[in-house]
């Protein structure tokens, strides 16, 4: 179709391309997840993507929207992959399904579909699952190198769909606390963080395995910046916020606070900073606003981790900041041409 109105030229960046580049940027971290936690996450992702596309199709049909442009925009797939990578790799299948259906139906389409949702759908689903199924959502296997783990694709499949292995071993016999969880509980028991990190659950800077997963998420994020899919403002502001508050508490009382580096490389810090807080639909759009938004996510994450009821606070922090987006955007409008005194 010939363009009927100016401009008659057009750039080449498209929504679908954004989404595909985002998925590509997730691959390194995905490989790391498989390496440390086994192939369960791959099953979760497949299940999540299929569920997401099916739910999206049903919702589009119900809302009388065209299927093709919205099924191919990639947004449902991104939501699915992000949620599947955020939940424990051996979560029962219904966790994934419930989460995705909730994300697509309630967090996305009931608000108007792509572009209209005030909250990040993957995070809404994550929080729903965490609140409703705390046991399943905190059942992580201890990270192990691919070589040392016996978990095959087949056994992961059995655990996800049957809840137990063929020999009858249930998942809770295999699982344990995550490093963030362990840190929080043991600090609560007045253990010194310097002792806590001596345990086998911890690695060089953060949790064993987790630190590498975080680093690979960050590398994927840098690729997104290089490709200009995301701007640097939110990740940098968020990590700076987290680093600042964790450094302050660490300097004040090293006996009750984990190191700043531990916070940067644990839990969902990097996936949150580069892949979730940067979700354009739910984040602020002004430059100043992005800095405020990012810093807010960083601070809230630490506050929830250190003094809240949950070991990780990324999802809550992002949702809380999502709520403030209209306000931040309104008060951080750039100065329009001619309003400056030069």
């Amino acid at each position, binding site marked *: *179709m*010939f*363009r*009927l*109105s*100016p*401009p*008659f*030229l*057009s*750039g*080449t*960046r*498209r*929504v679908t*391309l*954004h989404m595909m580049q985002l998925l590509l940027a997730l691959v390194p971290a995905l490989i790391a997840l498989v390496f440390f936690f086994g192939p369960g996450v791959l099953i979760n992702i497949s299940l999540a993507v299929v569920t997401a596309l099916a739910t999206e199709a049903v919702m589009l049909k119900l809302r009388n929207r*065209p299927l093709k*442009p*919205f099924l191919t*925009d990639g*947004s449902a797939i991104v939501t699915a992959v992000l949620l599947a990578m955020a939940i424990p790799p051996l979560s029962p299948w219904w966790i994934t399904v419930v989460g995705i259906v909730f994300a697509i139906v309630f967090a996305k389409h009931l608000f*108007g*579909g*792509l*572009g*209209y949702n005030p909250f990040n759908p993957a995070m809404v689903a994550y929080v729903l699952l965490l609140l409703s199924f705390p046991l399943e959502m905190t059942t992580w296997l201890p990270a192990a190198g691919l070589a040392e783990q016996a978990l095959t694709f087949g056994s992961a499949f059995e655990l996800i769909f049957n809840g137990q292995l063929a020999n009858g071993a249930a998942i809770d016999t295999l699982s344990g606390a995550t490093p963030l969880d362990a840190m929080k509980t043991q600090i609560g028991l007045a253990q010194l963080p310097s002792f806590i990190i001596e345990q086998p659950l911890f690695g060089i800077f953060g949790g064993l395995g987790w630190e590498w997963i975080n680093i690979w998420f960050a590398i994927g994020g840098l690729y997104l910046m290089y490709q200009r899919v995301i*701007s640097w403002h939110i990740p940098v502001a968020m990590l700076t916020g987290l680093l600042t508050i964790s450094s302050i508490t660490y300097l004040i009382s090293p006996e009750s606070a984990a190191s700043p580096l531990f916070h940067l490389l644990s839990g969902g810090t990097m996936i949150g900073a580069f892949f979730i807080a940067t979700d*354009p*639909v739910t*984040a602020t*759009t*002004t430059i100043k606003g992005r800095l405020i938004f990012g810093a807010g996510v960083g601070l809230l994450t630490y506050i929830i981790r250190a003094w809240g009821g949950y070991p990780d606070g990324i999802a809550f922090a992002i949702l809380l900041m999502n709520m403030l987006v209209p306000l931040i*955007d309104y008060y951080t*409008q*750039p*100065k*329009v*041409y*001619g*309003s*400056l005194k*030069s």
Partner: protein
Amino acid sequence: MSQPLGSFPGGLKLAGQKKRSTQTPIRKMPLSEQLILPLQQHIGAAAVPIVKVGDKVLKGQRIATPNGHVSVALHAPSSGVVTAIEDKPIPHPSGLSAPCIIIDTDGEDQWIERKVTEDFTQCTDHDVRQIIRDAGIVGLGGAGFPSFIKLNPGIHHHVDTLILNGAECEPYITCDDMLLRERSQGILDGIEIMQHALRVNNCVIAIEDNKPEAISAMELALASRSHLTSTSVMVIPTRYPTGSEKQLIQVVTGKQVPKSGLPIDIGIVLHNVGTAYAVGRAIKHGEPLISRIVTVTGTDVKHAGNFETLFGTPIHELLSFCETKRQQGEPFIQGGPMMGYNLAGDNLPVTKTANCILVGVDNATQANDPLPCIRCGDCAAACPVSLLPQQLYWHSRAKDLEKTQEYNLFDCIECGCCSYVCPSEIPLVQYFRFAKTETMNQEQERKKSDAARIRHENRQERQERERVEKAEKQRKRKAALAATKAAKAKKDAELAAAEAAKDSSEPATDNDAEK
């Protein structure tokens, strides 16, 4: 050569696509048999015809006179006979018709007597402006604002710098480029006159760095006029939309024109180089504005180039002269690919604002149905005015016009950068134009209804006043009536009493009652 002092945020680096039309010198478009001259080819009021059907006109003869202040004259581009004064389709995106003077040319191309001003420095600035107005000169960069107005700083302003816009930032258009290359002396003639009219010495000729030939031609010409010591060529970075008035001022001077102000408010006047050339021709050669250079280019044009074309020449003749692949009735673009508009008619004339006819753009991408806005903010990053197009879009779509004003809708220059970068392919500029028109309509409606309301209130007040007055009158009349009645009654009583008194012997009571 002087250095740019500032830059603007956002903008785009676009492929220039200018080579295609700069391979041959400017050529003269052959005389057309019929010229169609819209009475309004400028911003402001349409000119008023001063010829009638059947009149024989000479080349350069004035055929319409300005109507009001913001208006300019119109001249016959060639000699011939006025065959009609009627509505004809004009090159406007609306596709509407407007009053035109139609001249059938006689092929003689015979000039009217031209009044040459040998030494313009002997003229007052007022006289210079009058000549320019009478010559029908308007801004040739594309907007068509009467130039004489922009050469009148008025008594409250002092002009510090005259900027000549040779940026030509839109892709494909090369008419200014070629003019700078080939007629740099003519442009300087115009600049000197403009400087005289504005009483200003400082002058900057701003040219984008993708036009090296134009830059060197202009510098060479400038070197030959040693008295122009404060005039210089400024090479500015190639970036769209540098050629936009406010953005160019920001690049050249580092200053911003105040919101809802004019360049003159910060001591700057800006004219297009083509306008300067036209001013030079008008004063030094006595030639009114009857032609302009039109770039004809695009992927579907076989012999792209620049053509000195008489106004009124049908665009399709220009297109067939250049051998385009365009079929009759197919749309083409007038102006550049970023801010131009689609025209489809076949008998549309070349007008004063027609800088470029574009048939087919390179790497034309298919226009898909827009996806929803994902608030990526690419548009805000590209906006040269620092607007938030995504918010403006949101509120325009919701027809929340008040909110669009809060987000400075009317500061949008409609450059199209936001639409260009939008990953959802939303035609943002269309939404903003719609919101602007809608706001202006509402404003007008509001004014109308205000007037009606005031009229109504006045009427009510008047009626109320009349009612009160009437009641008062009635009351008075009633009172008067009552008084007369009472008086009559009294008289009757008196009479009766008198009658009675005639019989009785006590008439004194009457006198007491009178008191």
